[in-house]
C-alpha cells in the first residue's frame, strides 16, 4: 500500500513537472512587457495621484543582465560588469572590504556540495550582516538544513526574498562529490 502511494506520488510529480515545463515556462527573451507597470502590479494603488512619478521596473531592469528568476536580473553580473554602481556606505567611517574566501559545506545529503563564496556576498554586505546573529564565525558551529532555509532562516533570510530564489538549486549546490577541486577551506 505504501509503495503504491509512493509510486502514485512520483507519477503525479512527473505529470506536474511536464505540465509546468510546457505551460509555465519562463519567457526566453526579456521584452519590456515582462515587468508589469506599477499601476498593474496588484500592489500599487492606480488611483494614487503621485504614481506616475515613480519609476516603472521595466525601465530600470530591462537594461540589466537578464536572469530566469526573481527580478529577472542577474544582480551579481550587473554589479561585476559595472551596469550598476551602488554605494556601499553613507558614512565614510563604515569599513567594507571584499573577502575572497570560499567555504565548503559537504553535508548536503544526496545533493552536490555547496561552495559558499564570501566574495559575491561581501560585494553587497559587510561581516556583521550575517555574523554572528545568523552564522557563527567558527566553522561548523552553525547547524542548519534546507528546511530552515525554506522557512526563511539562514541563507533563506535573503535567498527567496531579494537574492536569487530557492528554485535555483544548482547555483549553490555546485560541487560534485567526486570533484577534486577542493575549495580553500572546509566549513
Amino acid at each position, binding site marked *: 500500500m505504501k509503495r503504491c502511494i509512493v*509510486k*502514485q506520488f512520483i*507519477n*503525479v510529480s512527473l*505529470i*506536474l513537472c511536464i*505540465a509546468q515545463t510546457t505551460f509555465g515556462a*519562463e519567457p526566453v527573451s526579456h521584452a519590456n512587457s515582462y*515587468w*508589469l507597470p*506599477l499601476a*498593474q*502590479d*496588484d*500592489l*500599487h*494603488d492606480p488611483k*494614487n*495621484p*503621485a*504614481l506616475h*512619478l*515613480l*519609476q516603472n*521596473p521595466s525601465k*530600470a*531592469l530591462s537594461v540589466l543582465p537578464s536572469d*530566469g*528568476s*526573481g*527580478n529577472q*536580473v542577474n*544582480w551579481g553580473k550587473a554589479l561585476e560588469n559595472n551596469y*550598476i554602481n*551602488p*554605494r*556601499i*556606505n*553613507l*558614512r565614510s567611517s*563604515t569599513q*567594507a572590504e571584499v573577502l575572497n574566501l570560499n567555504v565548503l559545506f559537504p553535508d548536503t545529503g544526496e545533493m552536490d556540495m555547496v561552495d559558499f563564496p564570501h566574495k559575491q556576498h561581501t*560585494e*553587497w*554586505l*559587510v561581516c*556583521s*550582516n550575517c555574523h554572528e546573529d545568523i552564522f557563527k564565525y567558527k566553522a561548523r558551529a552553525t547547524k542548519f538544513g534546507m528546511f530552515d532555509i*525554506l*522557512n*526563511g532562516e539562514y541563507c*533563506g*533570510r*535573503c535567498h*527567496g*526574498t*531579494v537574492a536569487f*530564489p*530557492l*528554485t535555483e538549486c544548482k547555483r549553490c549546490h555546485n560541487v560534485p562529490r567526486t570533484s577534486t577541486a577542493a575549495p580553500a577551506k572546509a566549513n
Partner: protein
Amino acid sequence: MKRHIEYQHPIFRHLPEKLILLALLTLLAPSPVSAEYGDVVFNKRSEKAGMRPVIFSHWFHRIRYKCNVCHTEIGFKMRARANDIHMADIKDGKFCGACHNNQIAWGPEKCDLCHSGLAGLTSGIIGGNTTGGPGKL
C-alpha cells in the same frame, strides 16, 4: 486459455484520477504574484492612520545602494515585519529618513510617493513568482 495481459506504463494507470488530482493542485497553487520580487509592504500603522500602505521596492534601491547601507548603517533588520517604524522616527532622520530628507532623496512631506499601496494589503515581503519560500506575502 492463457490470459493476455497488456503492458501498461505506470504513468497511465489510474489516469482519470491523476488528471483530477492535477486539476485540483492547479486550483490550489498560489496565483502568480504580479508585484516585483523583493517588494515590501508596510501596513502596521498606515491604514489605521488613514494613509495608504507603504510599498518599498528592493530593486529600485539596490541599483543605488548596497544592502549594507540600510541593513547595517541605517539599522533595518533583515526580516520583514521586524522593523517598528513610526513616521516621527523618519522625520527625525532615522530609518527611511536617513536618505528621504530632501537632501539625498525626496523628503517625508511627499506622502504619496511612499504611501502608494492598495488598501487592505498585509505587511510582508513578496517572494516572487518562482518560489513558494519564505517571501510569501
